[in-house]
């Protein structure tokens, strides 16, 4: 029934058609690439979710926290002699170089997040500004950082920095999984699990959850709210810095002043899809968004559908579950 329905769809180029055969052929590669991108979304989504959980603020400047990390990766690696071509270095040298880039990107992003919080949000909090003002400020900060970068670095993308040549590791049903995909997914998932455990188990994590639940009571109980807010921004920045390294690894020529914008919107969508304010939701939402976008574009025949499909699914999920898939907020989550 379903298949007859699908084949009876008009196949004219101007009409939407479902290419089930192509999806079948490309299913596994779409899955692996979707997961790879999804993990990057998820890492960035955590930054949105944590800040939202604590401050009920959508930090639209987070995409620029991410792109600053990308620039840090670019400058570190090109300073170390990496260029558009895969380096011919020993194993240890590459590992050390990438670790250094990772740490510098984390520091750069965390510092950006910290400064954004201190300069743009703290003064507003002190004056008890309405929530809408924070939102507009966030968008303003986002554009300000973008155009500062553009003034300094110009409108073109930076030259590619290739970290290593992806090589096949194993194959699943004839589709090759390469080293790059594996590194990104595994490293990202480990980082997210670590973040989740940190939020749920550590003393500071308990503080974050307490402030998320009820800032006033938390303050009365001896939690330093300002410190918790800073820590939240910094954690988001660190994760965005890690995401930046993986993003540049996947797309070596993606370092551009507008490069964070769309990715930031999608990561935000991922956070909403999974349930904003929920740490596990960000992970789930990110991976789902990566997969859905990839399946959708192959099913519908071209890449112009990636974002349309991803956001349509977002709308549909929100219609059924307005709180997102996992729904519960940071404060109330048991995790």
């Amino acid at each position, binding site marked *: 029934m379903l298949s007859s329905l699908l084949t009876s769809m008009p196949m004219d180029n101007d009409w939407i058609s479902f290419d089930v055969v192509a999806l079948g052929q490309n299913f596994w590669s779409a899955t692996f690439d979707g997961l790879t991108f999804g993990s990057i979304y998820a890492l960035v989504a955590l930054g949105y979710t944590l800040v939202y959980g604590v401050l009920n603020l959508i930090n639209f400047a987070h995409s620029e926290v991410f792109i600053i990390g990308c620039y840090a990766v670019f400058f570190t690696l090109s300073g170390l002699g990496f260029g558009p071509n895969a380096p011919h270095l020993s194993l240890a040298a590459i590992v050390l170089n990438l670790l250094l880039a990772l740490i510098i990107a984390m520091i750069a992003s965390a510092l950006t997040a910290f400064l954004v919080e201190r300069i743009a949000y703290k003064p507003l909090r002190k004056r008890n500004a309405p929530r809408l003002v924070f939102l507009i400020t966030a968008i303003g900060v986002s554009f300000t950082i973008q155009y500062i970068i553009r003034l300094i670095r110009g409108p073109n993308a930076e030259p590619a920095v290739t970290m290593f040549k992806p090589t096949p590791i194993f194959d699943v049903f004839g589709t090759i999984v390469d080293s790059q995909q594996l590194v990104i997914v595994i490293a990202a998932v480990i980082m997210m699990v670590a973040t989740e455990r940190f939020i749920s188990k550590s003393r500071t994590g308990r503080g974050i959850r307490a402030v998320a639940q009820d800032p006033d009571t938390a303050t009365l109980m001896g939690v330093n709210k300002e410190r918790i807010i800073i820590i939240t921004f910094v954690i988001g920045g660190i994760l965005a810095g890690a995401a930046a390294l993986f993003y540049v690894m996947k797309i070596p*020529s993606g370092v551009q002043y507008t490069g964070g914008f769309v990715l930031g919107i999608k990561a935000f969508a991922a956070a909403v899809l999974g349930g904003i304010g929920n740490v596990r939701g960000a992970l789930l939402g990110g991976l789902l968004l990566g997969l859905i976008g990839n399946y959708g574009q192959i099913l519908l025949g071209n890449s112009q559908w990636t974002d349309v499909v991803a956001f349509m699914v977002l709308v549909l999920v929100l219609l059924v579950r307005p709180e997102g898939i996992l729904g519960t907020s940071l404060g109330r989550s048991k995790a």
Partner: protein
Amino acid sequence: MYRKKVVTTLAIAATLGMLMSSCANQAGTGTSSDTAAAGGKVDIPALTKIDTPANAVLPKGDGNATCPATTTLAYAGAETGPNAQLGINIFNGIQLAINEHNAANAGCQVQFKKFDTEGDPSKATGPVTQVTTEPGIIGVVGLPFSGESKATGNIFEQAKLVHITPAATNPTLTDNGWTTFFRGLGNDAVQGPAAAKFMTGKLGAKKVYIVQDDSDYGIGLGKTTSDGLGSALVGTDKVTTGQKDFSAVISKIMNSKADAVFYSGYYAEGAPFDQQLVSKGFTGTFVGPDGLKDDQFIKQAGDSSNNAYFTCPCIPGELIPSFESAYKTLANAEPGTYSIEGYDAATVLLAGIDAGKQSRADLLSWVKSYDKDGLSKHYKWNDKGELQAPTVYGYKVENGKIVPVGAIGE
């Protein structure tokens, strides 16, 4: 205490990840042939010289021209924006023509003004309106891109202001009934079939996959190229401007076993696309049109760009020694794509000014009946504003530079 643990975990996780990647990096050589497409790269030798018309009109003229001090030519097009380099190539070419003209003609100092559209159709109407309201401006070189040209043609038409595009190649631009629009190069109805012939002929491609972006330029050229390919076309896909991840498209290309990919769009997307294609093991030829033919493409795609060929209705200005050295002195760079077209278009307008055509109406009818050689080719337009004898050149990447391989599609 716990925090320390987490940081350690993070560090270990990252290290492990990196280690794995590097192990793989060393161990996995020579196993990537499973998905590799058939066919290798055909090498066509680079061209080292081209012939220029003997009686080409040059900007300096006879040196006796006189004109009012307000006489101004304008460039409208990208100065900034993601594909700005093409615009920069063009206005440096115009600047060179105007400098040469003014140096030789003490009695006629033509001013030059630039208006930035960022190459974006939605932003172009503002600057173009500004151009038409400045009374001193009697001729314009621009706009470089097809989308913005389409969006602004009516504004020029209403102001009866002549404009010669040195780069916009979408064929439908001349179907709007505009009388002020002139195209200083071949359009995509010429370039597309030439590209198709180049791929299946000289490059020996049996299976070609076409990927186009969502710009007027990419869509138009994608269509004329696929029409020209016939049965050699094995698949098509569409991407968006600003897209950076092409993994889904690439997996379809690998499944189609294509031995050549044609990307119909601009370098901002084309460069990461080629880079990702090669890193996924594609061993065939990558072919792009004039929107990709820029040093930025090589800069952003790196080594991957070694598989790239370009088609372009532009003439390799760098092979004209006098032009090359003068441009280099002015711009501190080699002439780029469309530098010579910008130079020639400005020359047509300057020759009109020197001949006393110093109002918008006079200059418009001057261009309409123009029939002379420029440095790059012969300039004579039909009543729609298309050149009567356009040429398309093939280019390739060699040692990190774009070099011409000769005229194609004839």
